[in-house]
């Protein structure tokens, strides 16, 4: 079963085409990442799926419903973590969870949510006294308290220091451990790699690659460079041994040298940059 199906999704803001026909599917229980630089269309996509924005074209199904026309009860089945973690500053952690939990038919017990997001020591602390990382964990808690089937996380760790990012990753893994389907947007390659089962790379409103993190970075990953007649030659291959043997054999036959020969693996970073630039 697919939790989310997107087909040929289009969205324009005036003249600007933010989404130029993207398609993807998210299976139940998987963590799916939309990876891409700022302005690629990640937030537009996730906000269309959350029902905040209207699309201009294409088909969207989230938990079997069209988010543009979904009834209120449908909202009880999704959890949303927005980019800005806005909450009532003058409530404490427990009160915030109890208030939002009360909006749902079958909320998870507040104390259980506090444990899942690791805020036991801060349960009675006012929101305005929480650190950025702790706020984000409460944010996850608020998305989780209604016991949703599907959780949307829009750039959950942007602007975090490494320690806060790691602790957020732990929380996201524990959401996954609860069997939730998760859609995550991020512009951090390592985050997508660490957390997701599958990744779609967005660039200027188009999906330029989809697959498991391993698939994406496996693709012609070895680079062979040398100079011929004063010009740089770059070969990318998945069979470096064969290509090198042929190259060197030819050079030997001709009695020439492969000038500036270099063989190296491309880093994940390079693959990503190449896809998105």
């Amino acid at each position, binding site marked *: 079963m697919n939790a989310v199906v997107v087909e040929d999704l289009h969205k324009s803001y005036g003249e600007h085409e933010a989404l130029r026909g993207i398609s993807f599917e998210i299976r139940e229980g998987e963590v799916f990442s939309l990876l891409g630089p700022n302005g690629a269309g990640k937030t537009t996509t996730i906000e269309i799926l959350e029902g905040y924005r209207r699309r201009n074209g294409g088909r969207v199904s989230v938990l079997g419903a069209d988010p543009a026309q979904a009834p*209120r*009860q449908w909202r009880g089945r*999704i959890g949303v973590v927005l980019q800005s973690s806005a909450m009532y500053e003058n409530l404490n952690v427990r009160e915030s969870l109890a*208030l*939002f939990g*009360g909006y749902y*038919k079958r909320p998870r017990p507040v104390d259980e949510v506090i444990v899942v997001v690791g805020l036991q020591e801060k349960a009675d602390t006012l929101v305005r006294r929480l650190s950025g990382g702790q706020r984000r964990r409460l944010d996850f808690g608020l998305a989780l308290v209604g016991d949703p089937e599907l959780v949307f996380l829009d750039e959950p760790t942007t602007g975090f220091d490494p320690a806060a990012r790691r602790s957020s990753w732990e929380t996201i893994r524990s959401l996954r451990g609860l069997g939730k389907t998760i859609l995550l947007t991020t512009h951090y390659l390592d985050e997508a790699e660490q957390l997701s089962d599958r990744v779609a790379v967005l660039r200027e409103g188009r999906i330029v690659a989809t697959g498991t993190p391993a698939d994406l970075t496996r693709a012609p990953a070895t680079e062979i460079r040398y100079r011929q007649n004063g010009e740089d030659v770059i070969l990318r291959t998945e069979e470096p041994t064969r290509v090198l043997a042929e190259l060197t054999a030819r050079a030997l036959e001709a009695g020439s040298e492969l000038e500036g020969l270099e063989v190296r693996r491309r880093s994940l970073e390079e693959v990503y940059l190449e896809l998105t630039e």
Partner: protein
Amino acid sequence: MKLFAHELRGELLLYTRSRELAFFTFLLPLILFVLLGSTYGNDRIGHDRGANFLEAGMLGYGLVSTAFAGLAIFMVIRRESGILKRVRATPLPASTYIAAVLAATLIAFAVSSVCMIAIGRLLFSVPLPSRWLSLVLALGLGAAAFAALGLGMTTVVRSAEGASATVNAVYLPMAFIAGSFFSPHSFPQFLRAIADVLPLTYFIRLMRDVLLHGHQLWDNWSDVGVLVAWGAIGVVVALWKFRWEPAEG
């Protein structure tokens, strides 16, 4: 109904937790009543005693502080910080949320009015109102009209930082010109012309007629009509322009 009660409890908790809200919208009108009442409570304004006259005006000031200014400011802050957007992501119906926010505001105003009348009685020997029904109806009508205008007001403020400044720039002069603090009779002609279109002027006139002159609400149809008309404008603007999401960019 259960959802409404749940949200109302939450709103009341939020109300009592916010010191800014408690001070500016709730305590300040009471403090000003005490100060101004001590200053000219025993003077005569027209045929009325100063304190009696002032109490009616201060109920009007309490009204615009809680139902208009307080409501508009905290709703803009909630919208711009993204809290309204978060609430929209939950199954809580928008109508239930707004109803609970308005009910909490109404309760705050009711408590503030009771305090105002108690202070008038205890400190300045203002007689207790004799027309209770008309008083309650008039307070309720004023709360509804100004809450609608408060929600309408949120649509013209674009940022959380600007919320207090913009709202104060509207409601403080309005409170002065409408005669919350002094009798407007000595005001120059142009201020009285402005006062003639302000909804608060009509609410305070209604208060004075009910509290000081023993009128009933239904004796003052024209004042009621102006308040209803202003409230209707607020409702129309709020329905037409109210936003749940922060201003873009």
